[in-house]
């Protein structure tokens, strides 16, 4: 244990920042022109979540789960080539997809109302960041547009937007079960892992 503790985080990093960034370029290259369809599906998910029909909310939650499954399969499938821990991260994303599908089966789905409380506004901010500003921020930071990170393609904006949508959503407690809290755990865990990865990449 002492031996492990004597490593810096950067010592355990097994790939370079450039190769990590290339993952997003390669994913976007492979997806293009599917980005148009992706944008349409994302808009449809938000539209369904904003409707006042229960079945629409359930479909919106299924679409959000599909985004997590897609990232688990496509992004982490590629990431696994350079990071031995990637299959564990893929399992985390698949787990969140299962949790969202469970929300569809036993709960209200993804129902977005008009923001009223601080939580809603915080959620709106995070969702806006994940869905729109995160890719623009990478572009502004100097990544080529083809290498930017998009919701439902890259894990960070997917997790950020999901946190936001879950904070905005009406998710009543079921008995003693804090549904929202449970659904926030895996996206927050991923963002912690991602933050540590970036910390290591930037301090290597």
């Amino acid at each position, binding site marked *: 244990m002492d*031996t492990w503790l*004597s*490593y810096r985080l*950067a*010592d355990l*990093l*097994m*790939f*370079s920042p450039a*190769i990590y960034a*290339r993952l997003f370029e*390669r994913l976007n290259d492979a997806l293009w022109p599917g980005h148009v369809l992706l944008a349409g599906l994302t808009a449809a998910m938000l539209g369904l979540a904003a409707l006042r029909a229960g079945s629409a909310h359930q479909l919106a939650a299924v679409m959000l789960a599909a985004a997590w499954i897609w990232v688990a399969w496509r992004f982490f499938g*590629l990431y696994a*080539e*350079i*990071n*031995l821990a990637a299959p564990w991260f893929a399992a985390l994303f698949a787990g969140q997809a299962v949790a969202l599908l469970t929300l569809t089966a036993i709960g209200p789905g993804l129902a977005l109302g008009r923001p009223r409380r601080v939580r809603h506004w915080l959620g709106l901010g995070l969702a806006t960041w994940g869905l729109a500003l995160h890719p623009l921020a990478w572009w502004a930071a100097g990544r080529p547009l083809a290498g930017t990170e998009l919701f439902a393609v890259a894990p960070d904006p997917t997790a950020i937007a999901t946190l936001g949508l879950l904070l905005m959503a009406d998710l009543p407690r079921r008995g003693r079960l804090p549904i929202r809290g449970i659904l926030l755990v895996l996206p927050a865990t991923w963002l912690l892992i991602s933050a540590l990865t970036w910390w290591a990449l930037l301090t*290597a």
Partner: protein
Amino acid sequence: MPDPDLSRRRLLQLAAAGLGAGWLPGAFGQDTHETNALITRRLPDGSELPAIGMGTWITFNVGSDPEARAGRTAVLRAFFEAGGALVDSSPMYGSSEAVLGHALSEIGGDPPLFAASKVWTPDEDATAEQVAQSERRWGLERMDLMQVHNLVAWEAHLAHLLEMREEGRLRFVGITTSHGRRHAEIESIMRDWPIDFVQASYSLGNREAERRLLPLAEERGIAFIANRPFQGGRLIDRVKRHPFPDWAREAGLANWADYLLKFLIAHPAVTCAIPATSRVDHMRENMTALRGPLPDKALRQRMVEHVRGL
């Protein structure tokens, strides 16, 4: 225009080292004019090994990215053209072994490769399987050197590797550590087991190996591979912020990479230093250390003091 006589001389040097038969450095367009012979070190079986090798941690872990793979192929080609032989990798380095295999197949011919990889698994019965996996990934029939990586399940793996060496399925067997860890355990293995190689971190910024491991390697005739010679890039980035000293240039050192690497291979117990890079220009800088005069004891001391003062 390459000088055929020099090329022939170079080939003879490598052939004599048991490394270059059938492969002509410079065959890929590099000017082969040289002023100095390669610096080589004698291995436990009497063969010679060029004293600058190549590591692959991080730098060769690029997955299936075709653009990055082409870049690493160019780096490996530059390494061979400059006279390098020992390439070190590990199954722990992600896709590095597969990327090396791809680069070797792209380069083709019969480069003077000395293939070194590692066994890295807690499964004590998986030694031969991991050796076979490395052979498959590199596209080779036999690895030159297999090492127990960071002493993971080392007793069982070492026993299996030594058996494989006896059966002729490997040339050499070794153990590795890095970052200055577990030197007492490494030392005890060096005393008690008939290993050929030991690999540990040694650089101008981390000279811990000089205290016990290097003297013991010399005493026991164990080849020593110095890993992390630039401390993962931090050391060379730090010194490169300063002008290259005139006295070092006058002593025959060409650049900071040459300075940091020649300091290591000038130690009588060091067999090979293995810097890693993903850039051809850096590879060429590194390989300047494979030729030219080595610093003596007094100059090495001056080199230490100068870097300490930066």
